[in-house]
């Protein structure tokens, strides 16, 4: 059997690797972006000079040959699902028995006037970073439109080249659509501390170019003009489905799939950023644009393709990010506001750079999730507590079991417990006495 995978990102590559672990099927991975799999999440570090492109490749180049995973650098232009054939832009034909579509994402653009000027771009691909290298030569001021996770990365990249950064966000706070107010403010302060200019409650109206077609300013909806030589478009990404948009394959925002990652066409599957679940779990997004979900989906799909039909279950939500110097880890579904049946507990260090939040059920105090800023916390512990509905008082008392900061770091457990006991006088948390000299 010949399995063809379009897209050599984390989801496509994981599928290929796990198919190989279980079977001898012929595997071909096609991508137009790079010869080998690399880590998209590390793109910013290439620009900042922390790493070179080579360092972002999780596997050495010989790995693919050794595991008989054939790679092909080509752009697929068309798919004929009836005859099971792919066509490259150079007119080459490739046949498949099973097809995996994992074409990833593209930058969202909302038809802003001037969005195609030189110096205006998003950042999703390796080529985008190369372009950014070109586009930022000699630039002194830049605007980042939209303050999500890629937005803050691009801001940091620009900042590393001493470019003045303005970040334009629609909400009242940075990433205010997701982060609770306190956390959003914490990040906002940190952005300001880095001398970046966070402009809230502001939307892009148009981008103005000079006579050479290069950006020279932007104008916001409230009429403000900001001069800049570079504009980063980071108002989210959406599934890259241009390849299958007008075909038999059912799509909405992304390629529609069921819980087995199957599309409406037999032997055709979609995973990763480009897939959209027909029936997402309650409160979960229908499109999962995350590194680890792509990885999990790839593993599940490899099982199915190799004959053990497996349902995808992402388990308890978690994620992490870094806002300039502040690390963020989250476990459980933690949105802007707690759900109606939830209460929230929030502690923040007086310096305003470290914080934690726990949401828990009003009825029985069972833990629903955590947000940590500037504190590293163990996933195993958080996952276990949320899964087993551990009581919030128990969790606060036992936070030390999950702290994952480097040795000799200061622990804020005592401060957190004191604060908890103050705001929840009914449930008194306690720190177990440390046993002496136990390794």
């Amino acid at each position, binding site marked *: 059997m010949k399995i063809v995978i379009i897209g050599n990102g*984390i989801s496509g590559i994981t599928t290929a690797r796990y198919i190989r672990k279980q079977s001898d099927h012929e595997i071909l991975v096609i991508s137009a972006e790079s010869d080998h799999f690399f880590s998209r999440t590390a793109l910013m570090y290439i620009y*900042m000079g922390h790493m070179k492109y080579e360092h972002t490749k999780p596997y*050495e180049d010989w790995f693919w040959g050794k595991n008989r995973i054939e790679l092909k650098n080509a752009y697929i232009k068309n798919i004929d699902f009836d005859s099971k054939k792919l066509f490259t832009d150079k007119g080459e034909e490739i046949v498949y028995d099973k097809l995996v579509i994992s074409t990833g994402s593209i930058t969202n653009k909302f038809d802003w006037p001037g969005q195609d000027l030189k110096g205006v771009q998003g950042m999703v691909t390796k080529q985008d970073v190369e372009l950014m290298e070109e586009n930022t030569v000699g630039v002194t001021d830049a605007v980042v439109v939209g303050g999500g996770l890629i937005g803050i990365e691009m801001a940091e990249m620009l900042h590393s080249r001493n470019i003045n950064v303005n970040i334009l966000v629609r909400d009242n706070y940075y990433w205010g659509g997701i982060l609770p107010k306190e956390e959003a403010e914490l990040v906002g302060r940190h952005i300001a*501390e880095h001398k970046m200019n966070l402009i809230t409650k502001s939307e892009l109206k148009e981008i103005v170019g000079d006579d050479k077609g290069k950006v020279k300013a932007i104008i916001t909806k409230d009429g403000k003009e900001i001069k800049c030589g570079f504009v980063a478009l980071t108002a989210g990404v959406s599934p890259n489905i241009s390849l299958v948009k007008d075909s038999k394959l059912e799509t909405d925002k992304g390629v529609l799939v069921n819980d087995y990652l199957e599309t409406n066409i037999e032997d055709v599957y979609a995973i990763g950023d480009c897939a959209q679940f027909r029936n997402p779990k309650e409160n979960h997004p229908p499109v999962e644009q995350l590194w680890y979900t792509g*990885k999990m989906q790839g593993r599940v799909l490899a099982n199915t393709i190799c004959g053990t039909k497996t349902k995808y*279950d992402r388990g308890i939500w978690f994620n992490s990010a870094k806002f300039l110097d502040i690390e963020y880890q989250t476990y459980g579904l933690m949105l802007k506001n707690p759900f109606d049946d939830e209460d929230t507990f929030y502690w923040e260090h007086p310096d305003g750079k470290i914080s934690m939040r726990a949401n828990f059920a009003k009825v029985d105090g069972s833990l629903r999730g955590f947000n940590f800023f500037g504190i590293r916390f163990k996933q195993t512990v958080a996952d276990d507590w949320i899964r087993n509905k551990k009581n919030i008082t128990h969790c606060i008392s036992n936070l030390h079991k999950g702290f994952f*900061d480097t*040795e*000799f770091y200061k622990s804020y457990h005592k401060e957190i417990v004191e604060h908890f006991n103050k705001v929840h006088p009914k449930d008194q948390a306690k720190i177990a006495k440390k046993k002496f000299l136990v390794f």
Partner: protein
Amino acid sequence: MKIIRNIGLTIFLICFAVFLSLPFLGKYKLTEKIFTENFKDTEQQKLLKPALKDFFKKEYNSNISFIKDYNKAFDSVNDEFKKNKEWDKVIYDNHVFSIVKNSSQGFVKDNVAILFIICFVISSLGGLMYMIPALFIKPIAGIKNDHIFQRGITNRGIIAFLFAAFLITFYIFIYQKPAYLSNWVLLVDGLSNTLTGTNASQWFLYGFLYCLIMLVMSVRMYIKYRDNNYQLLRTTSVLFFQIAFAFMIPNILTNLQLPYMDFKNIWPLDYSFFFDYRLTELASNGMLGYWMLGWGIFLIIIGVPVMVYFFGKRWYCSWVCGCGGLAETLGDPFRQLSDKSLKAWKYERIIVHSVLVFAVVMTIAVLYTFFTGSSTLLGVDTYAIRQTYSFGIGFMFAGAIGTGFYPVMGSRVWCRFGCPLAAYLGIVQRFKSRFRITTNGGQCISCGNCSTFCEMGIDVRAYAQNGENIIRSSCVGCGICAAVCPRGVLKLENLSEEGRFDAYVRPEEKAF
């Protein structure tokens, strides 16, 4: 702030240029007095004097021609003896280093104090002026590896190769031709006299420079990792052990006419620990000598395994060891240059364990000769084995390659490929230790920062992205992988041995 930086750099470079010029400056004149002071053997004096007659009158403008003529005169005497088969008369030690050093006159000799200040004090201040503004240019603590791969010095540019060439040349001269560097050594005579009560040797200079460089470069570490207590403590620890244990204590022991000993240097890194002259020296110092011998053996047999069991190899490699100390200070800007390929790992295992075997064999041979008096073991000259080790491993590998290749192959070339003690510590760490680097579940995004900045060339990501703990014999526990990880995935820990190899599997995934 940028201006201060540039001034600092300029000051440093000027001082460095002055330092580099010293071996080429000054005049050299050997007097009979100097000659007799350095050639204490009156018999030899008598044999050599006729050949050196012209030499005594002449003043040289460069040490190169001085050394050339001196060696020529010396060799001519020896050649004569050899021709006449008068083997008992042949003179082996020409004392060229102390002869040159004491014959130095003029500029350097006359300005020792001021040159000391320029070369060591002002240059260090220049270095600090370059480093400290980082606190103001980047006032917010955090990992700042910006532009590392965009600058020649940290990304194998021409300047990096020049620096490597300088380091290698320095090692070759200090080990093999110290006479040419005698003007440098002159600068630290004063300090040496205070500490040890004798004039400085090239090794005193080397030790002094080692401490100074570590001191200045640890300021850089303190600034760079100021929000990371593990790094701050570790840097303080290596610095303390270098200055106190490797430099001060041995020199003070010398001053007290006691055996020179670095109490933290452990065989087989301290490969001469069982050499006859050292054993004899220890044996001739009564209780203290035996205690020193006992301490050395205790460290080998009990210290190493027990400490590695509880804390991992890091207790030594990145908290105590001098080689490690230099790598973690001077070497830190180059750590990302280590080779992470599987091939490099294969070579590493073969080479480092071969060196360990070599060290053990060499030591057995040396001890055999020490106890039996027979100079051959299984037909091989034990002295030759010992010399081969000293030259090949002690000088070439540990010195010239180990440090010289910092700017090309990263900071731990010796520790990774060559150090026999590291191999020993590593075997314990791999098979019987509580130490590990724990991976935080599924949080890894495979970005590669950890692997890139691992000076031991461990592909940390390969483990982290699979949710596996990192247990590798070569890991020196520097903690940088955990520091640079942008997702808080890694933590160095000493935990119970149980389950140390278990990967994290999410309950959902247990199904498949």
